[in-house]
């Protein structure tokens, strides 16, 4: 990729960057994208204004601002666009790519990019510690490089589920469920690398391709029937982006996998929850690439004895991003400075207003983000954040 010099050149680049990218010509300037964007109010150039500027032949003023880094790649704009322009993966990630070419990236995100390139994980930890969460744990978690045996499920654990203390609890809960279901599974441990989804959407396509090629080479070494991911981002990118690079593997998110085993899970889940539960739709399972995995997680929650599912105002296609996507996970300080608000806090207010006592999530970015938001909104007495895997594991007897 070369650095673009004119608005026209940039428009051509956007058109060619993604399937149906040329639809950018069909923009009606209706402004729906900018209106629905959770940070549109704080951006100097929200999506529709970017297109207007480019059409007027102006590239520099838009690239001179850094408000594009408020974009959390949540696909809300793409979802409402009447002209069906792939705004998130086409236009917005191309603007980010241009900013990155000019080395114009907030340092918080830069650290995550450097870490991923250097260590294969965003958190800057030693790759050798990637499976440490499974050490001294009641469930035996086979590492494929050691067992060298075929498995049904290659469990792609992911960065946060491997390293983040809070999300490791979700990871252990998932392992308990696999054990209870008698699933034949294995993990990659130190061989596993970041899936790259957020970097792809953050405009660092070279890094995405590097990580994808490393992961694909590792996947090819082992015999398995399907990949099951903890992270919706990993699911989304393995399903839709890796195949574009020639890496094709059958993949399901763990919510889909558990849903397929729901009859068996029903017989195992005996512990009562007795709580009202709101489910937060992660962007990667919902709007992204029209994945539309909306009902499976809800049906799992409804199958938990005593759980009463309640809905927040924004749900399914209108869900509000937790703020972690597209690099947002590492832009908290930047976003706070620019926008003075956190989408994760809006979501907690919404969940409490819906009468939920538990906010159920299915994405590893969400447990820590919403946990923090529960505290910062002073709702620790009202609501708890639990991953669906934790709710299911807690409900399983024994």
């Amino acid at each position: 990729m070369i650095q673009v010099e004119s608005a026209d050149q940039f428009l051509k680049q956007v058109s060619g960057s993604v399937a149906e990218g040329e639809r950018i010509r069909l923009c009606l300037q209706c402004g729906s994208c900018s209106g629905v964007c959770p940070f549109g109010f704080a951006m100097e150039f929200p999506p529709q204004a970017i297109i207007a500027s480019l059409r007027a032949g102006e590239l520099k003023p838009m690239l001179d601002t850094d408000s594009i880094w408020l974009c959390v790649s949540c696909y809300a704009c793409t979802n409402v666009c009447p002209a069906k322009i792939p705004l998130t993966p086409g236009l917005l990630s191309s603007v980010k790519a241009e900013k990155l070419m000019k080395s114009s990236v907030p340092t918080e995100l830069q650290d995550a990019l450097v870490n991923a390139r250097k260590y294969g994980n965003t958190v800057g930890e030693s790759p050798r510690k990637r499976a440490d969460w499974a050490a001294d744990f009641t469930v035996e978690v086979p590492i494929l490089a050691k067992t060298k045996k075929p498995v049904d499920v290659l469990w792609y654990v992911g960065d946060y589920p491997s390293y983040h203390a809070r999300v490791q609890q979700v990871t252990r809960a998932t392992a308990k469920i696999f054990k209870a279901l008698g699933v034949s599974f294995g993990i990659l441990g130190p061989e596993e690398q970041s899936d790259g989804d957020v970097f792809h959407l953050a405009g660092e396509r070279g890094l995405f391709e590097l990580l994808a090629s490393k992961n694909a080479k590792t996947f090819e070494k082992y015999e398995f029937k399907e990949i099951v991911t903890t992270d919706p981002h990993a699911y989304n990118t393995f399903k839709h982006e890796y195949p574009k690079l020639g890496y094709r593997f059958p993949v399901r998110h763990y919510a889909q996998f558990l849903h397929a085993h729901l009859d068996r899970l029903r017989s195992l889940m005996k512990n009562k929850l007795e709580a009202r539960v709101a489910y937060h739709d992660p962007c990667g399972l919902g709007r992204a690439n029209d994945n539309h995995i909306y009902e499976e997680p809800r049906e799992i929650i409804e199958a938990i004895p005593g759980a009463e599912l309640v809905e927040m105002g924004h749900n399914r296609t209108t869900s509000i991003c937790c703020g972690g996507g597209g690099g947002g996970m590492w832009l908290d300080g930047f976003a706070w400075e620019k926008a003075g608000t956190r989408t994760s806090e809006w979501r907690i207010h919404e969940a409490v207003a819906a009468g939920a006592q538990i906010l159920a999530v299915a994405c590893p970015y969400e447990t820590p983000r919403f946990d923090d938001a529960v505290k910062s909104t002073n709702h620790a007495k009202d609501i708890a954040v639990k991953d669906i895997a934790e709710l299911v594991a807690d409900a399983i007897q024994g």
Partner: protein
Amino acid sequence: MNIAVPIKFVPDLVEEMEIDSSTGKLDRTFMRLVPNELDEHALEQALILKERHGGTVAVITLDTGDVDEALFTAVAKGADRAIKIAGEGYAEGVTSHAYADLLAEALKNGSYDLILAGTQAVDDLDGSVGALLAAKLGIPYVGYTVKVVAEGGKVVATKEYPGGLLAEIEVNPPAVIGIQAAEKPPRYVVTSLVMDAMKKAKIDEAEGAAAGLEGAAEITGMRPPEAGKGAEMIDGDANAVAEKLVGILKEKGIL
């Protein structure tokens, strides 16, 4: 303005540091070596000066093993030349005196106006390489600098002293400047440009000269830091630690 930037490879602190009891030195079995952070700042400052005044930037390092990617990354960021000094045993670490000898030999005929080096490296925090290098080359040295301005053939370096004191020191190039921090954090370079550099750029090799050890401190032993008297280490899970900590703060009347 032609600038050279020596880059030292130091142990990556994401791995646990362990001492090999048989040798009394760092156990390097799983150790990964990475560019010293302040040397990355020196490179950033060199690239900024190049952007302002033109000229070239050369990066130079001892061949400790996996150094090529870091050198190509420097080229992708804007360095014009990458040099690695070949020799035995560099991965085990060399003394500051030996390192300065090797650099002086490799850089003495390079006609560099400035040599920008990190003020110190995390492995020994010795902070003497820049000064030793300048002495060997017979040129001035200013260390602990946070700003470097080139004007009318002169260079003004802003040096940091303890207590927030700053001094502007004017030197006539050629000179060695020890960088404490670049004007801005080291830049990011996208992976595709690093890949391009790997395909297109070449790394020059220089033969390592015999390195002297004269004046070098001898390491007689290493051990992990110990908790001193008066320090109370709180162990346990996060909740237990937090509870204990809150108790202590209350006891001391802070909460």
